């Protein structure tokens, strides 16, 4: 792997973001809007005093972590699509760039994006709702790492599907993650799902993050096996998805579709 090639791809996307309002909005505006909507809803629910737990912490924590996952996924699949839309993909792949470098650049982009979003939402939630993101203490790091990795895997998966089936499948890049949400126990505990769906939930790495977030909020500790399972499932999917991506890429080269992606 060569750093200068990874850097080239990173800079290409940073140039793009600097002056593109829709892209900046994707990081700044929509997540903040969402935070505000859920924040005020939480404030209202707290006033109603219907539960003993802190609705505010649960919902705001959920929305922030969900957005981190979402940003990681988007960073990967959209950065790929940008080059397909611009017909630039072949230009990149006639250079000595390796797939591993391409994937590394995507991972770094995802990291930059989730850090930005975490800081922005963390500060705003603190200012508006006295929500302290550091209440998760040390767990914040494994939580974010797991969301980053899982979002990256989702992004690579959708990218591989688009490579294989063309941009007609790009709706996946935007829609796939929504399919995950109900199973991933974002806003409610796994225990509130029907038994057979719970099995599915526990196959999804992000479930452990959301369950963990609630566990830390209500009891201050997190069962270790939660973290272990989060990382274990995550690494399993990561390896699977990277393998799948390499396979799809070479299948596209065999079928001669690389220049016909759009």
């Amino acid at each position, binding site marked *: 792997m060569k750093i200068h090639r990874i850097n080239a791809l990173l*800079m290409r996307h940073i140039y*793009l973001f600097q002056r593109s309002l829709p892209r900046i909005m994707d990081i700044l505006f929509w997540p903040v809007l969402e935070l505000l909507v859920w924040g005020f809803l939480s404030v209202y629910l707290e006033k109603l005093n219907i539960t003993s737990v802190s609705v505010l912490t649960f919902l705001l924590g959920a929305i922030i972590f969900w957005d981190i996952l979402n940003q990681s996924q988007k960073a990967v699949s959209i950065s790929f699509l940008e080059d397909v839309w611009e017909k630039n*993909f*072949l230009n990149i792949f*006639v*250079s*000595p760039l390796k797939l591993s470098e391409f994937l590394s650049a995507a991972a770094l982009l995802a990291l930059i994006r989730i850090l930005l979003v975490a800081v922005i939402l963390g500060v705003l939630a603190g200012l508006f709702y006295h929500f302290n993101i550091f209440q998760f203490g040390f767990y914040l790091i494994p939580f974010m790492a797991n969301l980053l990795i899982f979002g990256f895997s989702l992004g690579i998966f959708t990218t591989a599907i688009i490579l294989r089936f063309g941009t007609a499948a790009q709706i996946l890049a935007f829609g796939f993650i929504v399919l995950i949400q109900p199973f991933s126990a974002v806003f409610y505990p796994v225990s509130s799902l029907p038994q057979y769906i719970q099995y599915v939930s526990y196959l999804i790495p992000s479930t452990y993050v959301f369950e963990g977030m609630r566990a830390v909020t209500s009891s201050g500790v997190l069962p270790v096996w939660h973290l272990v399972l989060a990382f274990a499932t995550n690494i399993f999917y990561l390896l699977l998805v990277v393998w799948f991506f390499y396979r799809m890429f070479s299948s596209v080269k*065999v079928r*001669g579709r690389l*220049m016909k992606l759009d």
Partner: protein
Amino acid sequence: MPIIEVKNLVKEFGKVRAVNDLSFSIEEGKITGLLGPNGAGKTTTIQMILDLITPTSGDILVFGEDMKHHREEILSKVNFSSPYVALPNSLKVIENLYTFARLYGVKNIREKVEELADFFEIRAFLTKMTSSLSTGQLTRLNLTKALLNDPKLLLLDEPTASLDPDIADRTRQMFLKIQREKGISILYTSHNMAEVEEICDRVIFIQHGKLKDDGTPEDIIMKYGRKDLNEVFLHIARESTKL
């Protein structure tokens, strides 16, 4: 040593044999035209040389080495341009050039970009958005990108296809300048036979993925007893439809 050596190259897309047992080699420092009717297999061949399409069978050696084991080394000395690829519109010209200079690991990026900007006379719009360039300016920008890594070999797929006669002529002069001043070997496709006659040292005719003929434009015109390359092209293309 030939700069490209293609041996018994075959590419099948399902039942379609796009390239059918094709062999040829091209020499250093020459402009070689890869000619043939639509669907003859030119683009497929070029993309196989660039490792964008995996051949069904056969060998391709570039600079005497094969892509499987020397991809990084080979591609760092090759570049490509075609109207079906583009530099991102949403970036400034200079940002695009810097991006590709980094991608190719160019040492003195600023110097290189300035040198080529002068060579192709694009200095005046380096800080403009790529989307604001005219077709002629874009053609020069794409060539600038293609020379950033000081390639030894340039592959161009129908580079003059969508250009008006004036810009197409300027572009041809640039190819000659690139070849003469920088000693770069060029393999390129075109359907404009007058253009090919003007700038190619040698032409390779393919048809149905097979080698049809190979030689200097003059030799080929003589061999078929026609008045120019265009007539030869028509002869070859129509001969096949009779079959």
